[in-house]
């Protein structure tokens, strides 16, 4: 996953009008019916076959990351969701990240720039069924990687969570 994303950075972004029409149609809810792509194709003003081919291309080019469902964490029983920020020596970043992403409780793992008053450069989203379990997972990650400086940032309130709408400006 990582290597593919890295390569994309070097590509030029050629997104033609057809791709944009397909992307706009795909941005809403996926239709739950026998022939969902036919409905989306109509919205994009093309045939089902053309639409499906475009989707396949976007998927192969990794412009589409995933087509599928995201569950509601809490309803699925994951009530303790924390952003954990780690302070990792730069030369150990890749190695530490590789350990962290193997843990299925880690859904996101990004490196990030630091700030003068904020010396954390690796970020993981961790989902667990309780704060106890969440802290056990983090303690375990800390011991396995040897990274002792970290901050657990529990979410207190979700003010917004949406998906980006592309090419609507």
């Amino acid at each position: 996953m990582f290597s593919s994303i890295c390569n994309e950075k070097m590509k030029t972004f050629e997104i033609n009008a057809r791709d944009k029409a397909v992307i706009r149609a795909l941005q809403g809810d996926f239709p739950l019916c026998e022939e969902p792509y036919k409905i989306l194709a109509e919205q994009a003003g093309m045939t089902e076959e053309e639409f499906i081919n475009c989707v396949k291309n976007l998927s192969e080019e990794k412009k589409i990351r995933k087509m599928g469902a995201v569950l509601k964490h809490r309803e699925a029983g994951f009530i303790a969701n924390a952003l954990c920020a780690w302070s990792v020596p730069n030369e150990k970043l890749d190695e530490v990240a590789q350990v962290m992403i193997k843990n299925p409780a880690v859904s996101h793992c990004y490196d990030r720039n630091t700030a003068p008053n904020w010396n954390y450069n690796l970020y993981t989203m961790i989902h667990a069924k309780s704060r106890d379990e969440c802290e056990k997972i983090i303690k375990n990650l800390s011991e396995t990687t040897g990274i002792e400086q970290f901050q657990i940032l529990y979410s207190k309130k979700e003010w917004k969570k949406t998906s980006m709408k592309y090419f609507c400006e």
Partner: protein
Amino acid sequence: MTELTIFDKSLLNLLQSNIPICSRPFEEMAKKLGTDEQTVLKRLRELKAEGYLRRIGTFFNSNSLGYQGTLIALSVEPEKIQQVAEKINNYSGATHNYEREGQFNLWFTLITPNQVQEQKILSEVRELNGVEDMICLKSNKKYKVNVQFNLQ
């Protein structure tokens, strides 16, 4: 909310990975689950109505569409947090916005089509009444982006 059956769990586990790209995707999923298309569609509609699914749809890699994303952490006076959060929510590129415990108490992600837009929004946010500090945490490497829960 009803209890998830074993069938529901395997259906949701399958749906969390990838919807097949073909004319009858739910028929193909049904084959894998040893059932028929109508059973899959009926149950998915029910699970959606019951609120188990945040979204069924397409997730794009914003970088490869020519967009750029960043994470911003703000230190906001506690009594002003709601008004600041609401102002941030008005930006369509602010996709996630969470109040968190700690020194920085408001965290949001921002996706924009270019650097100029990003800078413009960031300077507006920095000027919001109640914002005491702001750090912009740009990512260079995404090691994992995969929100999947294995239901057992």
